[in-house]
């Protein structure tokens, strides 16, 4: 009699069986954090992939076959990401995997994808994903190192000597903090304070007051919404005037909307997509960026963000590799991916080599300022 209790639980499994889909289209899989704390990254990525797949299929697909992307939401949960990748590899037997959105989930599933010899193009930025290089693992988000280098270069031109850092205590913040603590002293600055705030924290006056006590020339705040917007507002409330750099994590209109007037005068490195319209005519990517931005705005009635760009780049790189390899075998796609040179994407110009599966150079970031609620291009 008690054994029947187990059958009830196991039959809930079989409900998930679901019908197998037709074999004809090229099947790609995507694991994105459409819900949960990283949904502001995952949702634009999902929207972009859906938009771009329709565009590719309208233009005849690739190798004459339509492309189908099975998008699974991992809800920013590591267990769900593992289960989703398992399902894509073993049940949907996809040719390549796009995502995951977050560094943590990417690190968790890398091993499974590599073991199954299926190429995975992560949408997250952590350097550990492609260093040391895993033959099957690529990433499209520019490394934090490039963004920090861009900020420090700007700080040098301003003649700042003492810098303080304030980072969020999640995957994104920690990755940034590690690179900041390495490069700030390395570039000849003095690190006066190293403060942290929680992703859900709602008041950072204590940290800012502490930082103010060490009288830095400038403060670098590394985080993603809503934290940095609270930091910007607290800075105004405390009447602080020390220059404040933000990270590419808040390179979206949403940040300006949340921070309101407190965003004025802030500086941050960002992908060119953020201020696509304001790029000089000579920029090679401008046309592509503006087209993507307007198409996204039209279809989803929301301003585009750099994170959506990661979805765009991962999909198009995969499709390009399938075209180059003239086959949808995972092994062939992997080899083709590694040989892609000078691919103009949203995040920048991608060039992969067997040693560099990140593919982006310093040109991925430009320095933006915020004036009266809009972006201003400050430097290369």
């Amino acid at each position, binding site marked *: 009699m008690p054994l029947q209790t187990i059958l009830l639980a196991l039959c*809930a499994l079989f409900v998930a069986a679901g019908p197998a889909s037709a074999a004809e289209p090229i099947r790609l899989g995507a694991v994105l954090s459409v819900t949960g704390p990283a949904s502001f990254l995952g949702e634009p990525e999902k929207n972009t992939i859906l938009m771009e797949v329709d565009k590719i299929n309208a233009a005849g697909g690739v190798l004459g076959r339509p492309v189908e992307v099975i998008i699974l939401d991992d809800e920013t949960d590591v267990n769900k990401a593992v289960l989703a990748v398992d399902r894509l590899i073993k049940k949907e037997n996809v040719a390549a995997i796009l995502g995951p959105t977050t560094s943590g989930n990417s690190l968790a599933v890398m091993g499974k994808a590599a073991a199954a010899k299926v190429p995975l193009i992560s949408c997250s930025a952590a350097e550990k994903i492609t260093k040391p290089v895993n033959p099957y693992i690529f990433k499209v988000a520019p490394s934090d190192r490039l963004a920090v280098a861009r900020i420090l270069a700007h700080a040098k031109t301003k003649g700042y000597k003492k810098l303080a850092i304030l980072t969020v205590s999640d995957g994104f913040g920690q990755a940034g903090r590690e690179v900041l603590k390495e490069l700030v002293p390395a570039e000849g600055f003095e690190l006066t304070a190293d403060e942290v705030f929680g992703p859900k924290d709602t008041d950072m006056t204590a940290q800012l007051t502490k930082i103010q006590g060490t009288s830095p020339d400038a403060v670098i705040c590394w985080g993603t919404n809503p934290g940095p917007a609270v930091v910007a507002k607290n800075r105004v409330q405390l009447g602080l005037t020390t220059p404040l750099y933000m990270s590419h994590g808040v390179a979206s209109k949403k940040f300006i909307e949340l921070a309101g007037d407190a965003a004025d005068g802030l500086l941050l490195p960002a992908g060119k997509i953020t201020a696509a319209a304001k790029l000089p005519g000579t920029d090679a990517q401008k046309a592509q960026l503006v087209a993507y931005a307007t198409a996204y705005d039209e279809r989803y009635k929301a301003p585009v963000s750099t994170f959506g760009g990661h979805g765009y780049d991962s999909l198009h790189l995969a499709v390009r590799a399938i075209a180059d390899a003239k086959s949808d075998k995972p092994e062939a796609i992997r080899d083709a991916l590694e040989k892609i040179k000078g691919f103009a994407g949203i995040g920048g110009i991608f060039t992969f080599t067997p040693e560099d599966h990140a593919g982006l150079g310093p040109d991925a970031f430009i320095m933006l300022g915020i004036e009266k609620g809009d972006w201003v291009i400050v430097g290369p």
Partner: protein
Amino acid sequence: MKRPVIGQSVVQAGLFLLLLLAVPAALPNEYYLSICILGSLNAVIAVGLNLLMGYAGQVSLGHAAFYGLGAYATAIATTRFGLPIPVGMAAGVTLAAAVAWIVAAPTLRLKGNYLAMATLGFGIIISIVFNEAVDLTGGPSGYVGIPRLALFGYTFESDRSYYTLMAVVLALVVLVALHLMKSRTGRALRALHVSEKAASSLGIDIAAHKRFVFVLSAALAGLAGVLYAHYLSFIAPASFGFSFSVQLVVMVVLGGMASVWGSVAGAFFLTALPEALREFEDIDILVYGAILVLTIMFLPDGLAGGLKRLGRKLRRVGVDHAG
């Protein structure tokens, strides 16, 4: 009065093991195996937590912390200190039990909602340590490179081999729980759940028994943590936070309080449910919440209680026909 066959629970646990081992053959696809592995990991914790909550009546909203302690202990022991995996596993279980032993004394003096708050607070403190002690635990972006489980020279490479191991571990844990509950310790725990006054008047040391079941349930959570770390070879603080502790409590209550089989059923059901709801795309969270509310409403004594009543009804129907 029929003489109880002492080996009844051994037979039940054995049948249960056979059922678990038969599952992979029945599964249409290997993908479900990873759900079964995560389900059995959760079941090990749920069985332990049920001993504490269902039998002894002591609520805990912090058990994900012991799960995490086990996982991080073996991760750090086997990578940073290069210790062999069995030593790492032992370290994981002992650390969870030791921390539980220290915390038990002051915490278990509290009762009801105050005990819930104390365990909740403890769970949050530990999860903050996982998140902030970056150089020890790898911080929020997690701990990478934990070796895949290898015991006595055999590495459990494939999911199928790992599932077989988990089936054996779960069956043993169920057997331990069944035997424990059918002994003087089990009776003492169920007694102090109803009336501590009466239990202590009969010579039962309330504090010692509470501490024992608290440490045992923590050790089982530590064991699950160890097996989880060597399965995924990557762990992050987010999986050991407050929301997982709440999920564990729901598994126990949904499965059926004071029923070992109930917690096993509750654990598998709640692990499989989100995967089964993927078809609902965006509204899967709504369906999940609704199923939770409705199950508790229509099955107040959980899945196990509901099936017991179903069994009794069927038997009565059977009797009517036969009679």
